[in-house]
């Protein structure tokens, strides 16, 4: 990062326009701005009240799974939804790390603290975890190609992460910051999924998920350390 011609702050405006802008904005608002009458909150409340959900967990495709789902009901739906969420996150995570590998491989980015082989290994773990979740969903008679509601929402949540990493203008450090957000969220997601699997009587899945969480904790540690080094290196 370098100091340069950043023009976004008010300090870069001419001194006369700075004071004048503030005074004018206040005077005009005093004369013309609407009162705060609670309508901002009221509009939101009305829509929340009337909202429909983003979607549903799909009905199982096989008769056996339909029978099982009737028996386990809502517990199964929640598990399928959260399995779908983690599957979507791991699939997108694979792409995040692929984008990161591209950034680290660029000739302009030689001076970064990342162990690229370890980074590639994390990418492979993401794909492996995606496949694990795929199998778990199939075992439950759920369709791993469907987008469950939580999978949809986590996709919305992750849009900014890919925007940061795939932008050629962002630095390795800035992209690591996005990966750290992903890993923090992913760690919490796996911990919750383990608890949910145990809660719904799927101890075998919980065992596999524990192994995945351990890998995730290592990812988090590595990404956090690379980010720390990148920032401190830049500050040296």
């Amino acid at each position, binding site marked *: 990062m370098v100091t*340069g*011609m*950043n*023009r*976004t*702050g*008010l300090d*870069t*405006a*001419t001194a006369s*326009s*700075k004071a*004048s*802008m*503030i005074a*004018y*904005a*206040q*005077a*005009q*608002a*005093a004369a*013309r*701005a*609407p*009162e*705060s*009458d*609670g*309508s*901002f909150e*009221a*509009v*939101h409340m*009305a*829509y929340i009240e009337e909202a429909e959900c983003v979607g549903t967990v799909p009905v199982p495709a096989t008769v056996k799974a339909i029978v099982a789902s009737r028996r386990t009901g809502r517990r199964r739906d929640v598990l399928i939804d959260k399995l779908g969420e983690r599957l979507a996150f791991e699939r997108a995570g694979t792409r995040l790390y692929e984008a990161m590998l591209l950034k680290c491989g660029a000739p302009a980015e030689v001076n970064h603290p990342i162990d690229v082989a370890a980074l590639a290994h994390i990418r492979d773990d993401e794909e492996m975890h995606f496949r694990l979740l795929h199998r778990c969903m199939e075992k439950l008679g759920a369709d791993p190609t469907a987008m469950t509601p939580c999978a949809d929402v986590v996709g*919305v949540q992750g849009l900014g992460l890919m*925007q940061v990493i795939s*932008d050629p*203008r962002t630095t390795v450090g800035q992209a690591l910051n996005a990966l750290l957000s992903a890993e923090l969220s992913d760690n919490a997601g796996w911990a919750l999924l383990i608890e949910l699997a145990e809660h719904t009587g799927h101890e075998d899945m919980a065992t596999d998920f524990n192994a995945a969480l351990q890998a995730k904790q290592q990812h988090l540690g590595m990404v956090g350390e690379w980010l720390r080094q990148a920032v401190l290196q830049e500050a040296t």
Partner: protein
Amino acid sequence: MSVNLFDSSGCPLDRQRFTWKELVQNPLSKLDDDAFTRVRAILMNGVELDAVRTKQAMLRMNGELRVPVAQLMRVEQEQASLVNWLLSADHSPLETTIAHEQTAVEVTASVAQLEPDPYLAQAYRYALLEHFDHLYRFSALLDRLEGKDANNITQGYTDIAPARPTTEQHRSPENDLIEPYGMDAALSTKLHALTLTGGEYQTHDYYMTIGPMFADPLARQLYAEVASIQSQYITHYSSMIDPHENPMEKMLLAEAAEVWNYQACAEQESNPRIRAIWERLLDYEMGHMQVVLHLFKDLERRDPAQLLGDGSLPPRIRFASQRDFVRRVIAAESSLRKDGTEFVSEEAEAPASIGWREHLNAEGSPSMAVSGGWHWTPGTELNDASDGDRSTPA
């Protein structure tokens, strides 16, 4: 570089080619480039897209022009891509919205001062202070939804304050119309109207595209509201244009408008890399001008000087803060309203418009709801020391 519409040959149409890499170049910097670089990019995207739009219509209606129109339209599509892709991905759709409204305020203010026809100058000022109010409402949304200061985009050039309230800008359709300029109007009058028409189409289409992308219900409402007003401006500005101009005349004037605008961009651009783009596209437009001049002579059997005079370009849009002018207009003219094609006092507004908006606003006004109690403060309203503690009550 001095440009004359008749003398400057420009790049021949058959040599106007781009690669994908040329079309998708390094974008401008949201943080470091001057706000007017972004204003120019937004304006020229609107101008290019309107040139394409005009030719799309011509293609449907003119057998003998099919080939040259298709050829010109292809290059203009690519020019629009090059220009529009200058916007960087770190602009949120709402930040780009702020930039659109800043473009509308500053460009319209400049045009209003250049316009020689007093009635049309009034029409520009009328829309100007409505755009100014949109900037204020969207700035409130940016603050309250994304926690950002709109001045990060406007860079101190443009005031952020209310003017004629957006909620009062909804008119019944017949009251959006403006009396058109006549065929003997000044060239500048024609270029002004074409430029602003293109700009309004672009902003309308942008809001119609991004409005549904917002999750926040009030944001969705506000975009629906302002997009509706943008469609009024399409009527407002399109109706300024002489409806008796024939297709060849329209094509000739559209090319002249592109040359005139690119020349203004090239003359005033502060970023050398972007200036080179404006110069290249100006050269391409001069090539288009030559094609259309030939078509005009061959098909119309008329001298293009009947429309373009001696070929010299009128005074260009000034890409600079028009703060003092805008403040004067807001102080003097915010209370004006419309009755048909006339500008009238608030009391004389057409009753049909009042009824129209009373119905629209019957379940609340998005632009009022979003800005209740809001005034612009550097660093967002959370930075307003005079406003006390905003902590959520226990």
